[in-house]
């Protein structure tokens, strides 16, 4: 059963990664990142059960905390960018280049 969970987790992770790569709306990109984090959490929880100790669950918990913080800051950044550039597309913020 563990294998199944892990494969599911990998699938979700990969889908999230592809989403990050192909979507341009910063908010959607963020959602995909969240998806990847969730996929990881699933793996953690699965491993917790596999090994029979609660550290995995605890890490997942911490991931959630960090994710929450990340979302807050990330969305604030998006809002700020949107205010000045009137766009939520990640491709529009491309000043940092050669």
């Amino acid at each position, binding site marked *: 059963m*563990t294998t199944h969970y892990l*494969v599911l987790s990998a699938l979700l992770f990969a889908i999230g990664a592809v*989403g990050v790569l192909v979507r341009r709306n910063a*908010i959607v990109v963020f959602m995909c990142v969240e998806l990847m984090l*969730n996929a990881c959490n699933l793996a953690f929880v699965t491993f917790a059960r596999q090994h029979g100790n609660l550290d995995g669950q605890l890490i997942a918990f911490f991931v959630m905390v960090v994710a929450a913080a990340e979302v807050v800051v990330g969305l604030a950044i998006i809002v700020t960018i949107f205010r000045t550039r009137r766009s939520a597309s990640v491709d529009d913020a491309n000043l940092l280049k050669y």
Partner: protein
Amino acid sequence: MGETITFWVLAVVSVSAALGLVFSRKAVYCALMLGVVMLSLAVLYAVQDAPFLAAVQIIVYTGAVMMLFLFVLMMVGVDSSDSLVETIRGQRFWAMIAGIGFAVLLALAVGQAAIGDPAGVTGANQRAGGNVPALAELIFTRHVFAFEVASALLITAALGAMVLAHRERTRPRPTQKDLAKARFVSGYPGPLPGPGTYARNNAIDMPARLPDGSVSELSVNRVIARHDVEDGRLPDDPELAEAIRQAAAEEEEHNASIAGPKEDR
């Protein structure tokens, strides 16, 4: 057996939802899809003897984080939909290759590993008298430092968000006198007429009629007027329709003036 069924059902659901997240044009749908995934995962956590996490997943993720997403979506424009034309050459193709490749690799790795039966966390839970006390014991003993750091992180994040969202006032706050002056200079000192006044149907998107029977464009909310024009829900009365169209045109103009500096691509 029950777990297997649950797993397979939720696996299918969550993968489909994830795919939906990636492929749906509208951001709101994406948000909903993400919600579905999260809820499915919450259930999977519960199935795997992690009731506390399942609850947190629902409360924090589906409750707080998703709401935050939706709020921001509202601010940025709920209805804005991505154009599906890829601008970076080869990005989509290579993203697919890399994504699929990565998934296959991970799956292979997992598949190759010899994984025995899960030990289960029941024992661990029981030692502390339940899942939540067990986690609590871990958090406040072994991981207390990480926990403190996490709390610091959260506070910092909150502060950071406030700093980022804070808009610096570039001109002095207008006094009441300034406001009054501006009102009179604008040429229309009184309050705007409410919509639907003297109208035949008392709806928010119907322009008001002035006492002389003419139609007041000022009474229509411009955003609503634009939606009406876009969706083709114009009233039969040509006079009213004309007023709505004009309000919608003003809205367009207004949007264009804000978006003006933005490069068109």
